[in-house]
């Protein structure tokens, strides 16, 4: 159990996906904030430098997950970035250098997500 919950930003335009992702991370002890899309996420990261990880959906209108990743890097001092994709087949194609991890939204999603974050933030 964390002494102080680690702040994590969850980004997605679909309410179900974002909420479920947020719940799973909350249950795992993180301090979760939700962002509705890329621009909202950029503003929230700029407003809270304590955010250690951004977990973002890939498909979003306007700015997709990959574009958000690139924009965060341009802002400098980007948080760790975890991308969620519709299924495992796309994961291979989307991996960018510098992206911390890609998690497929399959039936292993909840376990993989918590394990991935635990591995990225070994301090927890």
């Amino acid at each position, binding site marked *: *159990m964390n002494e102080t*919950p680690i702040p994590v930003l969850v980004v997605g335009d*679909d*309410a*179900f*996906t974002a*909420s*479920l992702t*947020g*719940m*799973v991370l*909350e*249950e*795992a*002890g993180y*301090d*979760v*904030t*939700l962002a509705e899309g890329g621009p909202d996420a950029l503003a929230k990261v700029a407003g809270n430098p304590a955010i250690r990880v951004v977990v973002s*959906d890939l*498909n979003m*209108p306007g700015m997709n997950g990959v574009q958000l990743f690139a924009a965060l890097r341009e802002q400098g001092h980007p948080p760790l970035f975890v991308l*969620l*994709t*519709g*299924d495992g087949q796309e994961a291979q194609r989307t991996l960018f250098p510098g992206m911390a991890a890609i998690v*497929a*939204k*399959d*039936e*292993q*999603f*909840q*376990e993989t*997500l*918590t394990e991935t974050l635990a591995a990225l933030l070994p301090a927890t």
Partner: protein
Amino acid sequence: MAVQSSRTSARINALRASFFQRLPDLIAAVQAAHERCAAGGAVPADWEDLFRLIHNLKGGSASFGFRPLCDATLEGERLAKAALGGGAGIDLAWHGRMRDCIARMSQEVARGSCFLEDPVMPATAPGPDARCGERKRIFLCDDDPLQVQALVEQIRCFGFEVISFEELAPFQEAVEKDPPDAVIMDVMFPGKPMGGPETMNLIQAARPVAIPTVFISAQAGLDFRLAAARAGSSAFMVKPVNITDLCGRLARLTAPETSELTRVLIVDDDPPLAEYHAQILREAGMETRIVTDPLLAMDPLLEMRPDLILMDMYMPGCTGVELAKTIRQIDTFFSIPIVFLSSETDQDRQVHALVTGGDEFLTKPIKPGNLVTAVAVRAERMKILRSFMIRDGMTGLFNHTATKDFLDAACADAARTGQEVCFAMIDLDKFKLVNDTYGHAMGDRVLIALSRLLQQRLRKSDLIGRFGGEEFAVVLPDCSLAKAESILDELRASFAGVTFKAAGVTFTATFSAGVAALSMQPDAAALCQAADEALYQAKSGGRNRVVVSGPRPPDSIPGLDLAKALSGLKGNWVRLHGLMKDFAEDSRNAGPELGALLAAGDLAAAGARLHTLKGIAGMLGANRLRDAIRTVETEVNAGQTAPPSWQVFEHAMRELLDGIQALSEPKPWHAEVNHGQDRRS
């Protein structure tokens, strides 16, 4: 409560301060006593004085937590004890060592190192329907006034009424006038090294029923213990007395055991004889049950849970020896006393019977008085042994096994009566930190404070257990979940308000709790698990909070893998349920809407929508739907506006939505489950 707490602490602190002020005088008295012994013409009383003075200094310094002084007195006490009986064989070297000891004691006092951590437990006032409704009267007799007052304060914190005496004569008079529920008696008094046991002997001999008596003694020697045992002591404790142990003993000794008759199971194939023995035991106030067929003994045994089994040796079907062996193989009855009753006079066979599981062999015919004694003594020992087996040593609360047994019994009762049973798991927050920062002794104090608070505030019908470590459990029979939650939350707030003092620093401790109700769960085991899961949520939700367990999820939902869908949510069905309901509501027309997008040729929008749905299906373990979407996606990407797999997709989608919509609503109060925890912005 805060007022009471600070007042009690203030009184004890005043006592400590007064003890500290008197220390130079006390040391001077020791010095003077030693000088009298060192001078020619010392009489035995002088040596006894020296011993008693050092001994009391040790007791006081230990009781008030003046550890360095207490350590310094130990050697002096040992030396003085060796000189008791007139100082025979005492030489110059002895006097030199005694002087060194006394010098060390005054050094410790002068150094002021005596001001250590505050040993005073914060006290809390009992709640309105607390357990201490009928306070037990305890008489405490000890010749050291400071020890007496400190003990009185602390014992009162446990809900006893304490009346103290410093001399034996007024004590004896008071007992004869109005006997208390229990007595705490020192062994040694001025001029009377065995004064306590002697007085108790006189009192008990004149009484039909002995008063439960706990002897407290600075001496652990066998002669002291023997004197106490001869005076009918119920317990013997060595000073400095562990207050929790003492009060645990007092609670057991003063518990209304009269309702708990000694239960004896009689197994004998001769009905008139069995009835005769049963009659004798019933006249002696015991409860009996007769089994005349040894092969049918198991059910009555499990039902009655006797304190003792009285068994014939030779019976048709199986012998007493065989039956005893079988009974001993059941864990619960591993140590139950079994007394054989038979006309067997062959010594070898008797020995064989004892070796194979009997405790005693009585030969028929037996005198009624002997039968009663043989049974009563063993059954009594069994009862005490059992109380040790079901209580946690430090807190006096029920242990894990006893708590689970009680919960099972309460759930079985509830199934009969239709009453609710709530179960709460409580865990101290960051307890390791308390231990690491302030030491284990302080950690123990926090544990004891919590156990005492629970005992004071909960109803008598509730059972409080310690599950080990910093984990506690409470069984609340006939209590609604909402009520249980508010009780637990009040306890949580009270406990968070208790301040602990360690080495001049004050700190507070908190606990988290998970509560569940039997009506929401299929059985006792699920109830435990639900409370445990709620506790986990309380912990991960930030601690110092009470979380109520929501209803259990259904075994399955058509179209999805529920275990996978809940895998990362710690079984938090309420949250997932709400989320799925919202999803089903939003997606009610997903099929037709997608169909319209495709018909309008907006393949990009349809693709994005399908992609999102595929992710949701994947996360829920709705693999049929996900696979159907994959196929449709491929077909759409290939430019087909009327994908051939559409029907399969629509069918799978319908199945998932119907499954979700068919779910029953959680009951209204479950809305409280995550109150104050939603951090999402």
